[in-house]
């Protein structure tokens, strides 16, 4: 059996898994909330999901002794309202996950390699050589694209959380602040969705990368040959650390 190299800690696996759950909930509910204003055919598809949420919610309300009509909601409106509640809860959940990850990672902060090894110029050249030339290059644990993605996720979610809070508690802010927050929230969310499409493709759509999918979702480890070939700098660093230990 091939030797396995550890790439991700239990905390990283746990965080990534739950970020996926919460991001899925946030994106889906966000699209349901704005369904009526999306271009066709997205409006019909996500609008249908609003009904799919609203109809059982209205039956549940009835079973609990409430009437959705007394509350004054049509099934569609109730679906959007349910989506808004889930959206807010998922936002808070995502922030909590991020906080747990940050607290867990803080002791390792000295080990973080934020700036690309070998400098920015080389990192850009390596990125182009690999993705646009399919040549073997000397990546560390993360290449420049991955580093930028992690940073974007972190900063992007912070922006989404802050603007989301302003929208949630809009009575406490000026109309100008609320409107600005709403605009930023929508732009940041769509940038995030576009980025996520690229991220998911690069992880799953390229067969050679699939050992990384297994590593981040389940084992935390990848075969030695894979790490040696795709992440040589990281492999050398790990080997050196093992020797010193």
């Amino acid at each position, binding site marked *: 059996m091939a030797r396995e190299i550890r790439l991700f800690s239990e905390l990283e696996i746990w965080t990534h898994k739950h970020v996926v759950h919460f991001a899925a909930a946030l994106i889906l509910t966000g699209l349901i909330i704005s369904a009526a*204003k999306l271009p066709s055919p997205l409006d019909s598809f996500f609008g249908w999901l609003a009904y799919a949420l609203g109809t059982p919610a209205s039956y549940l309300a009835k079973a609990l002794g409430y009437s959705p009509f007394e509350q004054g909601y049509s099934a569609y409106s109730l679906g*959007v309202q349910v989506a808004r509640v889930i959206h807010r809860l998922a936002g808070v959940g995502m922030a909590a996950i991020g906080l747990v990850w940050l607290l867990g990672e803080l002791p390792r902060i000295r080990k973080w390699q934020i700036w690309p090894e070998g400098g920015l110029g080389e990192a850009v050249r390596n990125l182009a050589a690999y993705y646009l030339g399919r040549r073997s290059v000397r990546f560390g644990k993360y290449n420049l694209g991955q580093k930028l993605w992690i940073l974007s996720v972190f900063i992007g979610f912070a922006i989404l959380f802050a603007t989301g809070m302003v929208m949630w508690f*809009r009575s406490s802010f000026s109309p100008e602040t609320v409107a600005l927050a709403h605009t930023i929230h929508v732009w940041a969310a769509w940038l995030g969705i576009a980025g996520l499409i690229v991220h998911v493709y690069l992880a799953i759509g390229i067969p050679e990368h699939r050992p990384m999918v297994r590593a981040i979702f389940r084992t935390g480890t990848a075969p030695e040959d894979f790490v040696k070939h795709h992440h040589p700098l990281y492999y050398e660093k790990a080997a050196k650390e093992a020797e010193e230990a």
Partner: protein
Amino acid sequence: MPVTEYGIVVNLDTCIGCRACQVACKVWNGLKAEETSFNPQGYTNPPDLTPNTWMIMQFLEGVEDGEPFWLFKKHQCLHCSEAPCAKACPVNAIEVHPEGAVVIRSDRCIGCRYCIEACPYNVPRYDPKTNKVYKCTLCIDRIQNGLQPACVEACPTDALEFGPWRELVEKYRAAGYEVYGDHVNDYVGHTHYLYVTRKYRSLGAKQGKKWYEVLGLPADPRGRLPGVQLGREVGVGLAALAALGAVAHAVYWRAKRMEKRSGSKGG
């Protein structure tokens, strides 16, 4: 048969500020009275629109050419033809009727207040008790049953006139009136409440303002809808571009892999 588009003219020259329209609006719509108190700012009372008060008579005071003026302006939803509030509503709770009325349907409203963000005239009002937003309906229930809006019917000086929108515009323009609302801008389109005057046309001219700007009616009203809408449109495009890019890269990557394989076989 095509539906007639209606409008209401507010004639500033003949309004006497009696507030009959304000009372009629309350009565017809079954809206509770407000708890009012002395307003040190002037005679306007209640001082602003509320979820329970869909129109108010504003008493505007000032000095023009050394002469004081006292002007009465009926304030409520202007019922824009482009209705940015309706465009902003995520549950399509705001209906734009062919008669010209822009109406919030309470059974659909979820109280998100996006319409408030979009309105350049600061009209819709949120009620935290019901979690819904309220505003003037142009008395669409009366119009659709052949009646005039309640405020128009109550006006003792005919300062309010209800009728087909186009006819009203033509009539008052021909009579030499200045008209606000027949074409405002691309954001609101035209409004179904039309403000007209001959008497106050030079109001504000010394300050480089138009008479309607003195009344609080902006020359180029803009709400905060475009940024949000553009974000959605650009965002959908970006996401589609990302998906297309992914497909293109997958095709390229596969071709490269095949090339490599055939190269290693040949070698």
